[in-house]
């Protein structure tokens, strides 16, 4: 790290001390032109990824999947099955890589932990009164501690959107700092719920706010509101992590979640990562897909590439 980034980093770490400083900083970030951002995202979506590049992208995408189930109907049996799938997504092909992580509610963490123990697959748990975040702070922090204690090594928290939209940035900041502390050694992913932030300017500000407060990852969505991850939103977030690393030397990961269902979609995201932030982020440590049905499509395309024939959906496990 250079001297300038060190001093920039310490300057930026001061921002959280005052509401005014935070506001001044966040509102001083360059704006995002909606039309331009959407146009750029659409353009990146026209890249043609074929043959060897496609095979490489599919395996990378599989390794980046946070295999997720976040339903009231989740059972210990279901999440165990999901964890087993995470370890060996394609039982017929041992060369198929494992996914990045399994993502479940805190109550399901112990069952998943049993299956994943000793493996390289991470265990993520949503916390902080996911998905709404509408609970007192102490309860959100207790939720977080419980998930970590049960074995989660990644925490997906939600920001307080009400406070953010009302301009109470320090409140949001302090909550993230507190959750980071409650997470201990677990990696903290900060869910911005971009579908509720309404503008790309807000997405950029929320991204910076989450990074300034110590988030290890910024994540688009809970998947529980109508608008989940989109290419332009992810583009703005990627630009934010790129600029943040430039300013501070610290690298932050990005996780689009919700609505990414096909291999084609996933590859578009990888192209966007590649051309916006570069190969440093093309790694499961720095980029994840929050998804459930995506994995099966990736597996089907993978099988098509290796065997030359499409197998029907019955050949892949449903979860």
């Amino acid at each position, binding site marked *: 790290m250079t001297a300038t980034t060190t001093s920039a980093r310490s300057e930026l770490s001061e921002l959280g001390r005052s509401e005014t400083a935070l506001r001044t900083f966040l509102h001083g970030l*360059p704006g995002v032109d909606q*039309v331009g951002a959407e146009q750029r995202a659409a353009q990146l979506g026209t890249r043609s990824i074929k043959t060897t590049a496609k095979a490489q992208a599919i395996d990378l995408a599989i390794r980046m999947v946070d295999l997720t189930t976040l339903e009231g109907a989740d059972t210990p049996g279901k999440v165990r099955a999901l964890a087993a799938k995470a370890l060996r997504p394609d039982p017929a092909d041992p060369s198929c890589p494992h996914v990045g992580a399994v993502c479940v509610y805190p109550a399901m963490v112990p069952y998943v932990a049993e299956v994943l123990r000793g493996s390289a697959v991470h265990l993520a748990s949503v916390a902080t009164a996911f998905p709404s975040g509408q609970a007192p702070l102490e309860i959100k922090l207790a939720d977080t501690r419980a998930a970590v204690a049960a074995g989660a090594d990644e925490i997906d928290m939600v920001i307080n959107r009400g406070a953010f939209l009302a301009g109470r940035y320090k409140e949001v900041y302090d909550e993230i700092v507190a959750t980071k502390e409650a997470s201990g050694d677990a990696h903290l992913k900060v869910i911005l719920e971009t579908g509720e932030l309404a503008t790309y300017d807000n997405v950029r500000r929320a991204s910076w706010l989450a990074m300034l407060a110590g988030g290890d990852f910024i994540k688009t969505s809970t998947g529980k509101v109508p608008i989940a991850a989109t290419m332009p939103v992810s583009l703005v977030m990627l630009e934010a992590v790129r600029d943040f690393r430039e300013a501070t030397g610290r690298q932050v990961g990005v996780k689009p979640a919700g609505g990414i269902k096909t291999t084609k979609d996933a590859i578009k995201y990888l192209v966007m990562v590649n051309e916006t932030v570069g190969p440093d982020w093309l790694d499961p440590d720095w980029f994840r897909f929050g998804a459930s049905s995506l994995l099966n499509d990736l597996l089907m395309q993978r099988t098509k590439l290796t065997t030359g024939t499409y197998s029907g959906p019955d050949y892949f496990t449903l979860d």
Partner: protein
Amino acid sequence: MFEYAPAPESRSVVDLKPSYGLFIDGTFVDPTDGGSFKSINPASEEVLAEVAEAGAQDVERAVRAARRAYDKVWGPMPGRERAKYLYRIARLIQERSRELAVLESLDNGKPIRESRDVDLPLVAAHFFYYAGWADKLEHAGFGANPQPIGVAAQVIPWNFPLLMLAWKIAPALAAGNTVVLKPAETTPLTALLFAEICQQADLPAGVVNILTGAGDTGRALVEHPGVDKVAFTGSTDVGRAIARSVAGTRKRLTLELGGKAANIVFDDAPIDQAVEGIVNGIFFNQGHVCCAGSRLLVQENVADRVLESLKRRMAQLRVGDPLDKNTDVGAINSAAQLERIRELSDAGSAEGAERWSPPCDLPDRGFWFAPTIFTGVTQAHRIAREEIFGPVLSVLTFRTPAEAVEKANNTPYGLSAGIWTDKGSRILWMADRLRAGVVWANTFNKFDPTSPFGGYKESGYGREGGRHGLEGYLNV
């Protein structure tokens, strides 16, 4: 690293003949004097086809055919009938767009991504748009029952061969004129495929005539006494010569000439999108764009930041095979153009500007020039004054909005300009003061058939596109 495997568009969708005649009076004919030239693929220097070179007698034949069609068929035809032909042509262009896009990329060197996603959709859109005007001319604002002019001689450039053809032919035909069109000598092939489409559409013979050839053919065409209207898109020098040659005749003239557009970035601009706009402004179509944003004027307090982002973005540009779907920057259209770009770039270095290009491997064969920017450029440098017509950007800085306007307008050209700022009032303030026919705000190189396009000062006169584009083809 995530390397994109080659993703070439198939060449086999185009059925190229070894040689092409002239398209006169509805059929392909041999030239009277038998001259011909070769059209090559600028990305490989491979010969694509042998094309006829029209002489004075061929021009005579074509103009006579166009006159006959005007007097007997197209002029008297009701607008709603003309519209049917134009709609049919538009639909055929859409149906055959893949073929046309591949051929355009082969002959011109532009990336297939652009010919597929920009050129061809706009070509079809132009025909659809003007087809709609054909039976509504009395509502175009040029008086009741406006009449066509007659036979139009149209000479188009090589940078957007089919799109410039559409800009010329669609309004001319909609208004009831017949045309003789000369495509550029380096890019005649899509115009010849368009001639086949005219046949396929059963367009009456002589309404569209295509004469291939070089400067002499063009001169013979615009100087022909049987021509009522001349429309030219190309360099300012040739435009001047044409204006001289039609002076004192009855011929109407519209000219769309060169440019040296300023792309102006203020300190409150959305930086990431502005960088995209700068890249699109100068590297779109290898910078072979008359309205290219070839002068970047950036406010000094964000200059470093913008340039850093720009360089990082330029490093992502993929230069190479135009038929690869992932190529961003294709081949320079001709050896002569490459020579001009090199000469001006060398002058930029010699005059003290600092040159930068991202590392990129250029193919061994064909005509290539890496995306290039010059920093430390002043108004006095040749690269800030002359149209380079290549992927070369000159970067200047400014301090105040007034200085930006002064620098932007300090050029004999006036085709286009771009403004990047979050402040709406500043966009309007600037647009009022910029002497340019098109002003883009927080975007660049946006085209639409409904929007008029044309220049101030030495960038030409007359407008193409929109309702205004009809004026040049009506007797008003």
